[in-house]
């Protein structure tokens, strides 16, 4: 074994470039890092910063275009960049293993789980089939999958996303590697599943003594899993150090800006708004001279920061803490953000949307090639709520909870099975969108999750907005509409020159602004925002959500904000509606939802969200099992199969009777059998430790 003071992985001054027809594109420059035995290094940064390239560089799998142009990657003292393909093959899978972002895509769809697992020790350790199978069985048990025998015989598509990721983890651990590289391992998963997977990874890391290189854009996750952190920006490491040092005593402006742009529990849209990072991420061929972050930095000093390349500098008194900033010791790091302005709280107005007992069932046929008995998917079961003018109502829940179906019924893309929806007194539940009037359609608009797919790639931005204006019947002449289109661009804070651009010339955040402009083209009264920021980078998320809030203030719009991200919900919602398996399980003001008494599901959700703040203490609740199928929901309470409070309810009431939506306080309702005495003993999930 290696001595404990020798690093498992040592990346030294690594540079990686991709060679394309347009020439060399440097993706990673002068990157250094080291992972000690049994420790975890977190690599954070926004998309395009080069963190995945570093991971693939360690694996020496850069494709035909990528090449290491300088530096060394030493694994247990041996330089990986100098190895022959055969030597690399011997190391991959046995000593260094990797876990990927998309579990479904990284498992072979045509091979049984068993074959994919047993292959690893059979290649590397020459184990026989039976021995390898025994090891696979043990590991499938280790990653806490029920019924390992059945799982081994299954094909990947027969498992849920969380189960697939557990299989990928088991596969990575099959040969007990010394180093595990995790590339956004939970980004594609729901929060409660993510919490369970992270929990598992930490436990297995301790059990097998595996070192980890953990790549993520989520600072909260890194805080929960890693010992050290390295922040990357535009191909360079900008700050590096122990988790606690970097989180509490950051010494690089980018790290600070990143933390200020994510919604931490203290943030508030009126008094302590998020601070977006100005400007855009530089593309590799347009990196500025000197500091890459210079043009977006509040502390930029002309003539110094853009003079020459900046090297990493040690921060004294703290072990391993380094920053790539010339001015780190001149900046007052404790000063509050300058741009913080108090924004007036909006007045909540009249009820504009009323949903009564809304139910939506789908019929699906179960046979793969048609045929088979028709089965019913119970997507929404008797939803009732109201939304007011200039209010933000967040709809929260994990995939499969029915929140997207609700949006579709409201939009008229689907017709409700039962129940009613009234918009400003007008009944719309039974009217599909084709038979809705122009005014109704213009009043109720939607902002979509993925700005990359929702704009027509062959039409200019201006044309697309004008098209929406034409459909909504705004303006009488082309000139009037054009004028209105330019005003809309002003509204979403895009330069007017963008009217002539095509979508591909825009960044993700800019595209989402166009989506917002289009939704507001007909002065929408209600806007359904379906995860509007989840596809965007953190620094852009802040800017887009602030924009939405500003427009809401100005236009008194009702915003239905569908999201799975409770941090952003806490930051910008006035009221929150929590959904589980087609039911509203809890509804109330944001303060009521985020404080006890909770609904047991809300409690688990809150505990699952990673928070990037070292002073926060969180209660640890891990949900076992899977979300039941909406085709075959459990009897009684929908959450009873996973509820940790079930034993507190006398009898088997939870399993037999659907609880009533009980009013706990004014405006606060919860779908639960727990009585007042039990609710009173609930503790807050998130607590700020005394400073």
């Amino acid at each position: 074994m290696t001595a404990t003071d020798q690093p498992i992985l040592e990346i030294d001054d690594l540079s990686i470039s991709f060679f394309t027809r347009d020439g060399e594109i440097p993706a990673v420059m002068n990157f250094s890092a080291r992972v000690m035995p049994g420790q975890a290094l977190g690599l954070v940064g926004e998309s395009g910063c080069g963190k995945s390239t570093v991971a693939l560089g360690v694996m020496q799998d850069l494709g035909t275009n990528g090449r290491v142009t300088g530096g060394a990657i030493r694994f247990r003292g041996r330089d990986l960049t100098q190895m022959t393909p055969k030597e690399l093959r011997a190391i991959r899978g046995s000593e260094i293993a990797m876990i990927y972002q998309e579990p479904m895509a990284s498992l072979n769809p045509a091979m049984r789980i068993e074959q994919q697992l047993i292959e690893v020790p059979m290649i590397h350790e020459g184990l026989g089939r039976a021995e390898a199978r025994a090891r696979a069985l043990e590991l499938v048990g280790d990653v806490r999958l029920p019924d390992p025998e059945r799982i081994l015989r299954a094909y990947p598509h027969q498992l849920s996303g969380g189960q697939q990721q557990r299989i990928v983890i088991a596969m990575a651990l099959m040969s007990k590697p010394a180093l595990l590289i995790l590339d956004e391992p939970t980004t594609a998963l729901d929060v409660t599943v993510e919490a369970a997977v992270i929990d598992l990874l930490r436990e297995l890391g301790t059990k097998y003594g595996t070192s980890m290189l953990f790549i993520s854009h989520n600072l909260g996750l890194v805080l929960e899993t890693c010992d050290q952190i390295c922040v990357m920006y535009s191909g360079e490491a900008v700050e590096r150090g122990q988790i606690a040092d970097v989180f509490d005593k950051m010494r690089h402006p980018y790290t600070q800006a990143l933390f200020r742009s994510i919604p931490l529990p203290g943030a508030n849209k009126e008094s302590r708004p998020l601070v977006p990072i100005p400007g855009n991420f530089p593309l590799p061929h347009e990196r500025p001279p000197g500091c890459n972050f210079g043009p977006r930095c509040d502390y930029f000093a002309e003539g110094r920061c853009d003079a020459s390349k900046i090297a990493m500098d040690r921060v004294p008194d703290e072990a391993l803490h380094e920053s790539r900033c010339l001015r780190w010791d001149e900046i007052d790091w404790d000063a509050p953000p300058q741009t913080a302005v108090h924004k007036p709280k909006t007045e909540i107005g009249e009820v504009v949307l009323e949903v009564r007992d809304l139910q939506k069932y789908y019929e699906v046929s179960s046979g793969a090639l048609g045929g088979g008995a028709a089965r019913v998917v119970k997507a929404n079961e008797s939803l009732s709520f109201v939304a007011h003018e200039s209010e933000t109502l967040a709809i929260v829940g994990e995939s499969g909870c029915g929140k997207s179906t609700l949006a579709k019924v409201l939009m008229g893309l689907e017709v409700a099975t039962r129940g009613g929806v009234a918009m400003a007194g007008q009944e719309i539940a039974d009217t599909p969108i084709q038979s809705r009037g122009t005014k109704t359609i213009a009043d109720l608009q939607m902002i979509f999750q993925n700005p990359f797919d929702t704009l027509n790639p062959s039409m200019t931005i201006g044309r697309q907005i004008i098209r929406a204006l034409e459909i909504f019947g705004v303006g009488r002449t082309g000139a009037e509409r054009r004028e209105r289109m330019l005003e809309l661009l002003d509204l979403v804070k895009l330069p007017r020159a963008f009217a002539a651009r095509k979508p591909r010339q825009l960044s993700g955040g800019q595209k989402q602004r166009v989506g917002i402009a289009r939704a507001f083209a007909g002065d929408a009264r209600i806007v359904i925002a379906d995860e509007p920021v989840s596809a965007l980078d953190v620094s852009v998320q802040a800017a887009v959500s602030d924009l939405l809030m500003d427009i809401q203030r100005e236009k008194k719009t009702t915003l239905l904000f569908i999201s799975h991200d409770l941090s952003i919900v806490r930051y910008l919602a006035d009221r929150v509606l929590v959904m589980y398996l087609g039911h509203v399980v809890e509804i109330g003001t944001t303060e009521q939802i985020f404080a006890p008494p909770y609904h047991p599901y809300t409690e688990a959700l809150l505990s699952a969200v990673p928070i990037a703040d070292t002073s926060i203490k969180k209660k640890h609740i891990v949900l076992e099992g899977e979300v039941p199928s909406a085709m075959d929901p459990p009897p009684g309470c929908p959450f009873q199969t996973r509820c940790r409070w079930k034993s507190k309810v006398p009898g088997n009431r939870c399993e037999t009777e659907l609880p009533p939506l009980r009013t706990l306080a004014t405006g606060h309702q919860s779908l639960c059998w727990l009585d007042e005495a039990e609710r009173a003993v609930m503790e807050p999930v998130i607590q700020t430790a005394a400073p």
Partner: protein
Amino acid sequence: MLRFIAGRLATMLLTALCLTLVVFFLTNLAPSLERVAKTQIGARVSDAEVESWLNRNGYGGPMLARYGEWLGVMPGWTSAAEDGGLAAGRCLGDTAAEAGAPRYCGVLQGDWGTSTVFRDEVATIIARSLALTGKLMLWVLVVMVPGALVIGVLSGMREGSRTDRGLSTLSILSTATPEYVSGVVFIAVFASSAVGLRWFNGSATSAMEQATFTNFTLPVMTIALYGMGYIARMTRASMAEVMTSQYIRTARLKGVSFRALVLRHALRNALIAPFTVIMLQIPWILNGVVIVETLFNYKGFGWTLVQAASNNDIELLLGVSVVSVIVVLLTQLISDLGYVYLNPRIRIS
């Protein structure tokens, strides 16, 4: 599963019904019938004689009724002899009137009728020629499918390599050359004195009795090469796509060797798309068979079709159409079932 197969069989019947109706209509247009009569009784006959011959031989009634007779849902035609008895009839056979002959005798009763060109039972002719073509197609598939898959996989597993470019060029060349060109070129090069390489026979007539390397290679290669390039292109595209997929990266980073990567991880996924193409190629092979059998004088199904069509042999043509529909749709059924086998995600359960 059974429902699915039953549905497919129903489609097959319906298609066969529609197709035969069209063929029946076209072959029973007045000029076509006149041609039949003239081939039977001589070219220099008057219109009246043609008319009476047609009436006597059951071509007189309304078209739909005669289609019904062929199907076996209408009673077969009869014509009276001069003495008042039955002289001839659809169900009576060649000789004189027989008592106790069935009233219905169509396809449904298993009677496919008689060929006017070969003066034989249609069923016998089709069975014989189908067996011969079956032999040809079998060898075509044996050469074409493995060849195409190997070429496709070899060029797709390292996209852009020299092997890939070389094999791709060959594939495109072979697909771009239709059978009637490649057949003639092959005969000229390998079977005539023009080049002097007299390796193979230019005629495949003797292969009907006993196929040998010498007399069967050229017809098999002519059909196989055309389809081979096409399937190889599909396999290459599919393989190249699979090789860039994430699960191949997973396998590579597990330490799987390149050989095992291709054979164990990529191959099955890469075969899903070409499998459909291969099955779709079978009707095309039938198409090629028509040209190649005529070119090499091999008296199989395609040759029979050409003979029947050029002589307006109504019942033989109808029989050939039905059999073609069955062959085409049956291969599609096999292709769907095989697809389900290859791709576990759409397995029928």
